[in-house]
């Protein structure tokens, strides 16, 4: 539980102001060429212009949509498959080692394969996002099911719960902390892969937009894009932490 204190807020804002001031001083003194490295005011101006003028706003929406779609796809498939594999000890023995073997494979390494099959298309980017975000959720669900308290299996046997009831009422909730943590990780991966996919396949979106800005040395636009991407990541992870806290209220008292 984070304590909210005024002292901390003031200190934090002060440090943030200092950070921005240092940024401004560095760029004003032209320690780095302004062509590459814009000051805070120019970044802010580009941000306001981009978001009010429309181009950057629609790109943001494109990227967010892509990220969410891939993430949702990965979440459903990951948790569903994870539950199927995780609930059976036998399925775990046969399938889990192969999945563990594939886990360290960088998701981005699948991009060329996806391009080979789907070309430079929106679907390709979507498949890459979903595939990359799938792993943590799949493995977390399997592990969560495997880690269920053995006593609860006995409780379910004594109560005479059906297999579906065991999955729905015992295994899934007990795996929930792990699944929720993996959903957050999955969202981070989705955003990264959305940006990478847009850069590579030149699809509408912030990834393509910041790459174009960098190629034409429009550094304020580039930095504005980065700020928005950071904001997307921040809002996404905050929303999921909020959901986590709500859904795992029963855990809070433990800590």
């Amino acid at each position, binding site marked *: 539980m984070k304590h909210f204190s005024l002292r901390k807020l003031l200190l934090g804002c002060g440090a943030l102001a200092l950070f921005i001031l240092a940024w401004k001083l560095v760029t004003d003194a032209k320690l780095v060429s302004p062509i590459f490295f814009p000051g805070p005011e120019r970044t802010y101006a580009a941000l306001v212009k981009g978001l009010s003028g429309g181009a950057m706003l629609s790109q943001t929406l494109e990227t967010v949509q892509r990220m969410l779609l891939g993430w949702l796809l990965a979440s459903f498939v990951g948790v569903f498959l994870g539950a199927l594999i995780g609930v059976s000890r036998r399925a775990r023995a046969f399938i889990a080692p192969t999945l563990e073997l594939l886990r360290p494979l960088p998701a981005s390494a699948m991009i060329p394969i996806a391009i080979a099959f789907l070309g430079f298309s929106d679907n390709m980017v979507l498949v890459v996002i979903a595939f990359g975000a799938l792993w943590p959720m799949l493995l977390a669900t399997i592990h969560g099911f495997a880690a269920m308290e053995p*006593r*609860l299996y*006995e409780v379910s046997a004594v*109560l*005479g*719960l059906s297999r579906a009831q065991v999955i729905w009422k015992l295994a899934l*909730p007990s795996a929930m902390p792990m699944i929720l943590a993996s959903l957050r990780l999955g969202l981070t991966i989705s955003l990264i892969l959305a940006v990478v996919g847009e850069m590579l396949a030149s699809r509408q979106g912030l990834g393509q937009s910041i790459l174009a800005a960098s190629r034409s040395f429009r550094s304020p636009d580039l930095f504005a894009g980065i700020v928005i991407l950071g904001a997307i990541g921040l809002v996404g992870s905050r929303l999921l932490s909020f959901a986590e806290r709500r859904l795992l209220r029963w855990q809070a*008292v433990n800590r």
Partner: protein
Amino acid sequence: MVVTQLSTRPRQGEDNSTPTSGEARIRIRDVTLSYGSLQIIGGISLDIAPGETISVIGPSGCGKTTLLRMLAGLARPTSGSVELDGSVLGGPNRSIAIVFQDYGKALLPWRTAAGNVSLALEARGCPGAERPAIIRELLEKIGLGRHADKYPAEMSGGMQQRLQIARCLAQEPKVLLMDEPFGALDAMTRQALQDEVLGLVATTGATMVFVTHDLEEAIYLGDRIICLQPNPGRVGRVVDVRLARPRDQLLTREDHEFLRLRRELYDLIKDDHQ
């Protein structure tokens, strides 16, 4: 033998190891259990009458818990059988409830007290509309009426164990198995729960098998006490408890018969330990 024959409970007969009448609720027939070459239980036979309360004591490693798990259908005997109302028990059965010692692991931490009780109702397909009333009644009965919305982690050990008992009662069991349920609780909570369990058993008419390592608890609760001996686990002695019911924490424990039984069992267990 000093006998205080005030038992309010119908007794099944004088031969104390096997009641003569045929209507045993649980009949254990020559049960053994081995893991590989290791024999845990070496031939136990016992009849338990409906409504009877049996205490099981014995030194650690004598198979008390294993015996209880076989009665719950959670462990399969290697040979012999356990019968419930005349039919062989093939696995867990909803009419046999078990209260585990480790209440922290046996409750669903993500469900409130009411939710945990509800699980048993959901399992037996009780319609959703009827559940709240039953849950409220059970929680009231076990003294958790005001804590229905609390999560297990917010409750004391005693409250959690009460909750587990409430969930077992929601099964409407014929047989209540208790595996050292109060072992982890403090003395005051223990005594309060002992009386509550006795009260519940009396009102529901359930048969109870109560495993404990506490001799006084065994005497206080039981109609009969089964003393197990280890290596492999088998019945050493069966002792009748002729103490008046309802029992009372002060009066019963000061009764001559109580003290005499305590002495007898103490000597028995002490011999086993040597």
